[in-house]
């Protein structure tokens, strides 16, 4: 029955989302935050390019 499948899907999604949320928050992961850049030093200026 489609209703049961949808209900099971909702519960499964919520369980996975809950675990993911805890994991992401635990690691301090921020969606859409600027990513880290590699070492990028201007040898003449001694300063990072932006």
């Amino acid at each position: 029955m489609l209703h049961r499948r949808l209900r099971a899907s909702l519960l499964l999604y919520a369980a996975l989302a809950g675990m993911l949320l805890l994991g992401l928050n635990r690691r301090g992961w921020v969606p859409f935050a600027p990513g880290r850049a590699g070492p990028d030093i201007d040898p003449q200026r001694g300063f990072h390019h932006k």
Partner: protein
Amino acid sequence: MAGESPVPPAAPPLKVAAFRCAACGAPVTLRAPGRSQVASCDSCGVVLDANDPNHRVLAGAVQGRKAAPDIPLGARGALGGVTWEAIGFMRRRDGSAAYGWSEYLLYNPWRGFRWLVESEGHWTLVRMSADRPDDNGDGSFSYRGERYKEFLSGSALVQYVEGEFYWRVEVGERVSVSDFVAPPHILSREISGDEISWSHGEYLPADVVASAFRLDPPPYQIGVAACQPFPGGIKPRALAALALLMVGALFTLQLYTVVRSESKPLYSADLTAHAAGPERQIVTPPFTVDIPTRDLELVASSPVNNNWLYLDASLVNESTQESFPADLEVSYYQGVDDGESWSEGSQRADRLLSSVPPGVYHLEIETTLPGNMPARDFHVEVIRDVPVWRSFWLLVAPLLAVALGLGIAGFSFEAKRWSQSDHPFVTSSSGNDDHDG
């Protein structure tokens, strides 16, 4: 809607009988002999007494041939594993003649009678109810654990009959009817004189009926029937409520992590931005980012007023030289236009950095100021492990979309259903009824 007026007689005889029409002499077949009270003549259309030895004429052929049944009389079809034969057809309409419906009397010698009701392409299989539903006193009735809400009340007039019936049905016969619904079920109450009869029906998908009786094509469906369930057997309100409950559970988890977040300041300083010269570039003293890996927030604030300050900043790991770029624009404008004060922007700007590993870091900041401002003081702060809501919103967005979509679909479906009732909850005029479908 549908009715079975009197209680059908018991004892199923297994035979088919035939007699001659008292009016025209044509053969008339009885498919439920001994149980049928009346039968119509296929040839001349008169209604005959099925039990009278002379099969006297009860009603003349005044009705003519106005209605053609979609299920031919004598056709057999299996519904729910039981084979039924269509033995009677009746066309009825409501007292105001606003709409009509068809009722087919089905017969199985071992199971008795059922009514198959067709209204605007929607089908309901109805049987007489021996139990009397409990009156809840608020216009609803309870029957076998379900609460049935009042849908429609009015009168039903027989327009046309064909075949045989277990009571003396007549064209022009009028009864008071009330329908109560708990989709996919319907309770119908018919009152004729002192007699009250109840019947209980269940919605049947059109393809089931069409397949059972080989209808080609089945009647075109219009609107939503009184007891039609939501497509796919889905209960949209229950699923939407479950989705919102899951949102609540995720919100609780989010609150747990918010409460546990440290929000620990690692570095804080008052600095001065310059418009030109080497002072534009600022390198802060080193500071330590603690174990374990967490997010960091870079915050800048400056008392700018109708002005701006731009900081092109990077958090740089002193040992690996890995950098986290984070530009910050502090921009604040305010004024009064036409007597109304307004403001735009903020004297504070912040930027989140994702999963910063522990280590020793410093900030490198390149400042940019408007041309008319040589220098500007600002405050900068680095905070570790601040609450992050973006993951939460990203993860609950699908649940909220499901809840919203199901809510809208369910409401629209129920609005269509109840628009045909005495209690529509969406009306074009004033006077809404508080139905939750």
